[in-house]
């Protein structure tokens, strides 16, 4: 039995109440869809592959404070010590840590010269142990050889002749065929040639908010600098046990420097995405509370409108309506209101998204998400009205003969 017409006419006489619920649903929809969208956006960012063997790697900072200190000799001793510690797979000196939010960047260009287009990339200065130490995957070309590694002094402006870049960077440089990057010469610092000898699958830059976060390059440098990182990879499951051991060995071997910030890559990831995680949790709380408020609002209003219509419902029962028909009436009424609210909500969601796209340069929302929002709110509405509708169905038909 279709009562839609009757319900619509009854609703039309009580516009404000219905409109209030519809508006609530619409706003809930607007906020929910956009909040979910933002959560998904952040989650996608967080799920990007860093390229590292995150579970089994850690790093520490080495800060030399002594004057007249043979940095180069100590570096070789340190690396030798770490690499030969049982349980360590490999270790490397590096100038920056992926996702740590501080690092170096330079730009590469196809042609030499001052006003040529260049693409920025993160710079990691490492030796031939980098791929093994960081757990990277070389997918084309070759690794550095020991002979490629140059010594770099602070303030030096010349660059080595070879580099290994990430696949994403290769795709940016050679959009037609990233594999063609191997053997090509590119220019760093506007005029210095560099040959691409290898491509690694992935390695993220230090800055997670940068749109070029997938673009990184390895440069065969060992730095003669008072401050540097050692990046260490251990056998599976032995990281936590080795961290204090290596810290102690290094600290005790040489008192003229400070070993600090012994940190796992996993912690760095957590810290890097802490704001993302926090924002996501807050947004989730917003969605849940909002849905609850709207749900309870529907329950409250439905109970009230049913209380007000007790006699009417009793009369309907007296006139032959079954319990099911009474229930269906209220479910249908809610469905119609929800449909109206959802319609406005879709427009609202798109409008808010447009504003977000404009103000915060987010990307546009997907159709599936809006569909999800619509379905969810229909379900919430129907669930919310279930209890009041059951209450309505329980109203005794004899209510009709009672004088109130």
């Amino acid at each position, binding site marked *: 039995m279709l009562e839609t017409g009757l319900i619509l006419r009854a609703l039309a006489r009580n516009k404000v109440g219905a409109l209030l619920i519809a508006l609530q649903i619409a706003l809930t929809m607007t906020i929910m869809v956009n909040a979910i969208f933002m959560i998904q956006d952040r989650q996608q960012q967080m799920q990007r592959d860093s390229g590292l063997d995150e579970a089994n790697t850690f790093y520490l900072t080495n800060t030399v404070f002594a004057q007249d200190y043979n940095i180069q000799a100590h570096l070789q001793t340190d690396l030798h010590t770490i690499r030969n510690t049982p349980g360590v797979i490999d270790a490397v000196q590096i100038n920056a840590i992926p996702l740590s939010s501080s690092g170096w960047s330079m730009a590469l260009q196809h042609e030499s010269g001052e006003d040529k287009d260049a693409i920025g990339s993160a710079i990691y200065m490492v030796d031939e142990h980098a791929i093994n130490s960081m757990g990277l995957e070389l997918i084309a070309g070759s690794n550095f050889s020991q002979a490629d590694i140059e010594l770099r002094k602070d303030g030096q402006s010349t660059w080595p002749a070879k580099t290994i870049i990430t696949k994403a960077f290769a795709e940016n440089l050679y959009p037609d065929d990233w594999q063609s990057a191997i053997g090509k010469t590119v220019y760093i610092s506007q005029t210095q040639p560099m040959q691409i000898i290898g491509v690694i699958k992935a390695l993220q830059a230090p800055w997670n908010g940068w749109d070029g976060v997938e673009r990184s390059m390895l440069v065969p440098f060992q730095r003669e600098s008072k401050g540097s990182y050692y990046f260490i990879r251990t056998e599976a499951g032995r990281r936590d046990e080795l961290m204090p051991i290596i810290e102690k060995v290094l600290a005790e071997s040489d008192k003229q420097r*400070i070993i600090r910030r012994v940190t796992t890559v996993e912690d760095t990831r957590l810290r890097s995405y802490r704001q993302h995680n926090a924002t996501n949790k807050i947004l989730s709380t*917003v969605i849940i509370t*909002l849905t609850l408020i*709207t749900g309870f609002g529907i329950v*409250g*209003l439905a109970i*009230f409108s049913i209380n007000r219509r007790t006699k009417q419902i009793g009369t309907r029962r007296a006139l032959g309506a079954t319990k099911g028909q009474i229930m269906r009436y209220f479910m249908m009424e809610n469905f119609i209101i929800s449909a109206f609210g959802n319609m406005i909500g879709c427009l609202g969601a798109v409008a808010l998204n447009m504003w977000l796209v404009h103000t915060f340069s987010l990307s546009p929302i997907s159709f599936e998400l809006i569909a999800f929002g619509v379905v969810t709110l229909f379900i919430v509405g129907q669930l919310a009205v279930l209890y009041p509708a059951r209450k309505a169905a329980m109203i005794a038909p004899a209510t009709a003969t009672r004088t109130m």
Partner: protein
Amino acid sequence: MFSYYLRLAWISILRHWGLSLLMVCAIGLGIGAAMTTVTVNYLMSADPIPEKSQQLYYVQLDSWDVNDPFDDGLNPPDQLTFTDSSNLMRAKKAFRQNVQAQAFGVIEPNDPEMLPLIVNGRANSADFFPMFNVPFIYGSGWSNESDESKEFVVVLSKETNDKLFGGENSVGKAIKLEGNMFRVVGVIDTWQPKPRFYDISTGAFNDSEDIFVPFHLIADEKISRSGNTNCWKPSGDGFKAFLASECIWTQFWVELKTEQDKADYQQFLNAYVQEQKQFGRFQRPLDNRLSNVMQWLESQEVVADDAQMMMAMSFMFLIVCLLNTVGLLLAKFLGKAPEIGLRQALGASKSTLFSQYIIESACIGILGGVLGLILAYLGLKGVEGLYGDYMKGLASLDANMAIFAVLLALISTILAGLYPTWRACNIQPAQQLKNQ
């Protein structure tokens, strides 16, 4: 009459306690959410130095690449080259001027038992301290003469002084920093401007520094610089070449007392750039800016996108909660139609009915506001816990915010109550009584 209405409101709230609870919760949640985000935004965009934020100006000069503008041409570079800041410093055309950069170093304590200490530092000019009203416990900043004669002087933070000297007056004592002996001239009291307006290039909400040393030490390679460096043109080999390069890594602040001083300084900057153009530098069109503290914070978008987005959302959330309340109040007041009819029959005028129901709305609003305050307090605790250091000091309610919360709740609930009250007042008494 007012107390009578209050009593009626209270009876009514208790009688429909479920519905009242729902409304109070809805308003409380809405206010709580709104207040949490408003507080974060309010603290992020607070004036960190209200007494003179109008007189402190950050200097920007467009020294960038003629082919490829900085920030897509929207803003000139956010820092200055060493060359330019040194020139401006030497010119001394402002009431006070300060060149600065971030630095770091290792302190070797006098006590050989103590481990060396890595400290975050600021390399700055003598004017830094009076310019930014830095509070001192002991001593003071160094003088311009100390800068000129390149003395090795240092100002310690309270925390560093506690670590190195157990909190005693250390003025006149020496510390070994990066292998050199420095004389302590002052100890700063707890000083944590939020945002850390004097240097937002490395994080607007970072802690202030452990030590402060003269800027010239960087050029003399007595202390290492850190912070952001941005170059558009390769520099030559070595540190001297770096200092002479077009890389930007210094920040320059001036204190100008009047609008006239500001205009004069602007003129001076333009003249300076014109002069530099003769050496082949500054090939872009003239774009030199003087931004006061708040203008500077705004142009650097110190208030995080997330915070603004959340505030927008939380206000929509509040609107949902208010719509909820309008609906529930409407249901409640219309449910009282017979009572309203009776009251009218007994002589209540529309205005007395209006007062009665508006007061009932306001009561719910105040209850909601109080709940909202509690929720905002918890919400801010949660925000602080979730965001960690980033939100430290940005998540606390002050009296202003508390009053604002209750007022917001009160006003929004009264607004929400207007329509239902109006409907209730327009109920026809005759009809209600007939159907009794």
